[in-house]
């Protein structure tokens, strides 16, 4: 079965095509276009316009790259949510149009669960992980328990990526700020104390963000602040992930989301995993960030386990929670 997935929850629009290869996911193509705002954060309507402008082209490009034709596509999936309304509506419309014109079934899927499933699908021996999902909008610790994907910890205010971007914008770095902050942090070993906020399994970043901005105002060195932000936030993320692993007694940890590209975060989670005799997994970069392949793969899993969706039911859900998904493809 060949599944085509369209992703568009936030700043990226992407089309991926995957195939079921003995229960594993083979990615045939995965084309990603990222909207870069001229200034400030993501403007939802501008992002949606960007997606509308590119989606037809990357659909064609993706099919070409996969070496198939549109007739070979057996299923069309799209990101149903959570995400920005205008963006979701744009790619859902593209998904419906494609599904109707090809006369192939449609499937709206949960973006967060897709991040986890692409890890299980593409990485050997990644079977039942705790996912630390760190992106701009989302920061969640997700694991499978009692027949659902449950959120064991999440941010109480802003996502970690958003925290990094907001700080970056405050000091004049360009979007996306994460990689620049990572680079600057490498130049420092001087830790400035920042609030470390964990409540139960949940985590909060906005206090830390304010404190970091104050350090900057007070003339502290930018690289020292960047280093301190990374060390503090990533330690807290690693701690909640470890708590979830201890609680669920799972022996695998998977990273996902754009911030998973950060080497320091990877290193911390890997160290934690090693100390617990657990396995550490991280998908390739284009499968970590928002991408169409993961949407295609989750759609395929759902379809194969009997889920069906009519075009009439293919509405979007901006607040589509991870634990609302009926997991039919796992025991």
């Amino acid at each position, binding site marked *: 079965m060949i599944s085509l997935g369209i992703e568009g929850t936030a700043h990226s629009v992407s089309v991926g095509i995957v195939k079921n290869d003995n229960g594993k996911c083979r990615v045939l193509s995965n084309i990603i276009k990222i909207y870069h705002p001229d200034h400030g954060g993501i403007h939802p309507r501008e992002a949606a316009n960007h997606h509308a402008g590119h989606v037809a082209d990357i659909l064609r490009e993706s099919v070409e790259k996969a070496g198939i034709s549109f007739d070979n596509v057996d299923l069309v999936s799209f990101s149903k949510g959570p995400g920005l309304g205008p963006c979701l509506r744009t790619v859902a419309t593209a998904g419906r149009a494609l599904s109707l014109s090809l006369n192939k079934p449609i499937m709206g899927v949960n973006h967060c669960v897709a991040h986890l499933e692409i890890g299980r699908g593409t990485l050997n021996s990644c079977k039942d992980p705790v996912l630390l999902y760190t992106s701009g909008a989302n920061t969640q610790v997700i694991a499978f328990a009692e027949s659902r994907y449950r959120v064991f910890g999440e941010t109480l205010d802003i996502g970690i990526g958003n925290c990094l971007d907001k700080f970056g914008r405050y000091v004049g770095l360009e979007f996306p700020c994460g990689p620049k902050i990572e680079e600057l942090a490498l130049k420092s070993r001087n830790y400035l104390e920042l609030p470390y906020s964990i409540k*139960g399994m949940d985590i909060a970043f906005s206090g830390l963000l304010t404190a970091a901005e104050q350090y900057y105002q007070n003339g502290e060195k930018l690289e020292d602040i960047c280093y301190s932000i990374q*060390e503090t936030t990533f330690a807290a993320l690693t701690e909640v992930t470890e708590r979830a692993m201890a609680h669920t007694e799972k022996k695998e940890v998977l990273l996902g989301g754009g911030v998973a590209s950060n080497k320091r975060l990877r290193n911390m989670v890997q160290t934690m995993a090693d*100390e617990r005799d657990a396995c550490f997994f991280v998908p390739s970069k284009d499968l970590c960030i928002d991408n169409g392949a993961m949407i295609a793969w989750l759609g395929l899993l759902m379809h194969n386990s009997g889920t069906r969706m009519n075009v009439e039911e293919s509405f979007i859900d901006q607040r589509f929670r991870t634990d609302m998904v009926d997991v039919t493809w796992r025991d």
Partner: protein
Amino acid sequence: MLYQGAEAKILLSKYMDKSVVKKQRISKSYRIKNIDKRLINSRTKEEAKLMIEARKNGVAVPIIYDIDLLNGVITMEYLQGKRVKDILNSLSEGERKNLCRKIGENIACLHNNDIIHGDITTSNMILTDDHVHFIDFGLGEKNSEIEAKGVDLHVLMEAIESTHSKYSECFNYVLECYKKNLKQNANQVIKKIEEIVRRGRYR
């Protein structure tokens, strides 16, 4: 060793001929020394302080015998009892209701003294013959705000929903008694819980 959690080891030991439990916080090499020391030191200190204060105000907690801040060790009484997590589902309806009421009463007592436990789950309560004991104040703090009390109860609500999903009415029993025993702002705290639920992302 009795138990190893994510944050600490719980060791069975002897202290002046008594059976005691040592809670030893584990140093983590994934975080820098500075943060590691700060967290272990402040959490050990804060936990001991809160336990002493809870006990002074009539909430059952293990008696503390010794505190070693440098190494992050609290030596405390060894309780012969059962974790509420392990027994709650197997109790009779009446016993369960009773236990939940006791829990509510105790949480109200903590909150009356502005003690926020920080991780109220059924694994952090031990039932002995006569009392529900609260353990693991490692994430606790002193805080008089309605928000903090609401978050504290919300943690328990989620724990009951996930671990005792068949008996989710338990939380209502807890709340009922909590409301009766909280001296100030009981209704506001309960309203706050609803707000926190709504505030959760994508709800």
